[in-house]
């Protein structure tokens, strides 16, 4: 029983990581007033770039760099459309998702000819698991041993980075001048503009932050969790991350708990596949898979508290009406 619990929690950590990175990514953009339903596309683009670069260079860090680069480039397209051209933010996000989905599959097949996969990588080209000191020695100690050597130790560095990004994002958003301005521009860009701060530049920096974090998320998928990029490997994770962001009411620490919850549901769904649960019988896996989405809809409906998006979210800032 305890072993099962540790096992489920361990996979929860692994499955939550991409959600957490992507949801935190979305946090920066959306708090600055730029809705981003293109998290999925940026992750996918980054995953492909990371898989490709790691396979060609043999270095996981080069992969991460390439992933971030591509993700930031896609974020800048979103910025160019929404900030500079005042285009519809939802439409732009949809476009980026399709662009990434199509381009990764197309280029993957054209370059490597493996049905959209990138070549498998091993060793230094992947982010390997980091074993904490004394993990092996402590393994047999009851309770603590399992927690320490299975749950805490033995993840790759991006998992730890994701969880460290939570306090970091909190600090950036709530304890720095940049964060204060970023939140302000998402609520009342007019006031920020009056204070002599460029709304455009601030929002561009916010979408770049989003790009960087999505780059981490995508890289984790292709060369952290797996050993290669597979066509459409994000499989809706960007949207679950978006759901988590809304579920957490656009706040960094609740974002982590929402992602852990959704990751946990995913882990449970995998664990319960085809198993009998005493008293209930076989739980349909599809029901658990749909639960994050259902929960988010229920939350949005205002039945569990109220999710109020940033006030200026979704609208382009027009300095002067002509």
């Amino acid at each position, binding site marked *: 029983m305890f072993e099962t619990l540790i096992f489920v929690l361990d996979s929860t950590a692994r499955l939550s990581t991409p959600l957490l990175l992507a949801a935190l990514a979305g946090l920066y953009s959306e708090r600055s007033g730029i809705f981003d339903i293109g998290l999925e596309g940026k992750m996918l683009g980054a995953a492909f770039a990371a898989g490709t670069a790691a396979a060609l260079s043999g270095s996981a860090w080069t992969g991460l760099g390439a992933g971030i680069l591509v993700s930031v480039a896609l974020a800048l397209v979103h910025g160019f459309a929404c900030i500079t051209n*005042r285009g519809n933010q*939802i439409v732009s996000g949809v476009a980026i998702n*399709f*662009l990434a989905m*199509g381009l990764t599959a197309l280029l993957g097949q054209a370059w490597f000819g493996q049905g*959209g996969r990138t070549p498998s990588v091993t060793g230094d080209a992947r982010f390997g698991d980091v074993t904490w000191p004394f993990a092996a020695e402590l393994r047999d100690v009851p309770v603590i041993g399992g927690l320490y050597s299975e749950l805490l130790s033995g993840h790759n560095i991006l998992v730890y980075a994701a969880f460290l990004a939570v306090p970091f994002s909190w600090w950036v958003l709530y304890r720095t001048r940049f964060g204060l301005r970023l939140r302000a521009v998402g609520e009342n860009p007019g006031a920020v503009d009056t204070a002599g701060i460029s709304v455009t530049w601030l929002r561009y920096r916010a979408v770049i932050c989003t790009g960087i974090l999505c780059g981490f998320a995508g890289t984790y998928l292709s060369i952290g969790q797996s050993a290669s990029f597979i066509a459409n490997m994000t499989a809706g994770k960007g949207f679950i991350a978006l759901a988590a962001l809304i579920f957490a009411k656009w706040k960094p620490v609740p974002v982590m708990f929402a992602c852990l919850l959704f990751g946990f549901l995913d882990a449970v769904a995998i664990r319960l596949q085809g198993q009998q649960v005493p008293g209930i019988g076989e739980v*349909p896996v599809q*029901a658990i898979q749909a639960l994050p989405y259902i929960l*988010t809809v229920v939350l949005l409906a205002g039945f569990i508290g109220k999710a109020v998006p940033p006030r200026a979210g979704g609208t382009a800032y027009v300095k002067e009406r*002509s």
Partner: protein
Amino acid sequence: MTAGQLPRWVDYGLMPALNVAAAFLVSGLVVLLIGENPVEAVKVLVWGSLGRNEGIGFTLFYATNFIFTGLAVAIAFHAGLFNIGGEGQAYLGGLGVALACLALDRYVPWWVTLPFAVLGAAAFGAAWAFIPAILQAKRGSHVVITTIMFNFIAASLMVYLLVNLLSKRGSMQPETRTFESGGRLPLLQDVLPGTDFGSAPVNFSFLLALAACLLVWIVVWRTRLGYEIRTFGANPVAAVYAGISPLRITVVTMLMSGGLAGMMAINEIMGSQHRLLIEFVSGYGFVGIAVALMGRAHPVGIVFAAVLFGMLYQGGAELAFEMPTITRDMIVVIQGLVILFAGALEHMFRPALLRIFGVLAARPAPAA
């Protein structure tokens, strides 16, 4: 913003054309990037989609799907709503079609089944759009987010239904039994004498799609409801002031939108597959977004855009055969680029055009 300063033909003709041209130009660059000749690719594409009767048939078959999903997105646009849930609504629409066909196909001819199938498709599609609509109208939850969530919920629900309840007895395939002749629409070449589309599955639903275009045009531009929808879309505050109920408009528009998306299943399920199967929508719902944007949310524009995307789908299959490096994923790229340039970057060329036509207008007009 700065509307009304450009001649109408520039606003409605030249600018959209420039946007679409930009999208295809970038697509051409992508083809160059993977080392193929874009001009050759276009030749193969056009020949594959329009060169033979069968190609035309397939083009029209795909276009039928896109007309329905495009109209679904467009009608919501007119009310200022963005329905991204066409995918899920069409999926559920398939359930409605399948239930009607499974119940009736052994007893009555297809033209008796059809009204029930249409009703089933529209009702199930509309029902799937109803919850997001009512949540938007009553609780203020954004319809974009809820419809995205409903796409995923639909996918899970349909897998569950097909695996556990609807699949054939003794079969592991997640699909229903194949419909008998009472659940199959006739091919278009059997309905329209003198036409021949080879083995292409284009069928009676193409005519239904054209009828739906006409109906949408009448509803949006020739009825009081349509006027209210457009007013609400243009300015919700003014609409409320004029006594238009936001609740009613939001819900009614989303019901029509979901119903239209659901109708897509008539073509795919009753017209071609003759059984309900997993993931039959396969992105057609999302293509509707590109089609609606490209067709400027007008039924005539949508028919053209749908045929163009039909050509891309059919010609793309041919292209993947002739030039194996250009897989059908190319269509998804083009779709993304069209949405980007015709949608999000809609006004990119406006400043330049304003400058050009500003100069032209400043010149003394020729003797009038």
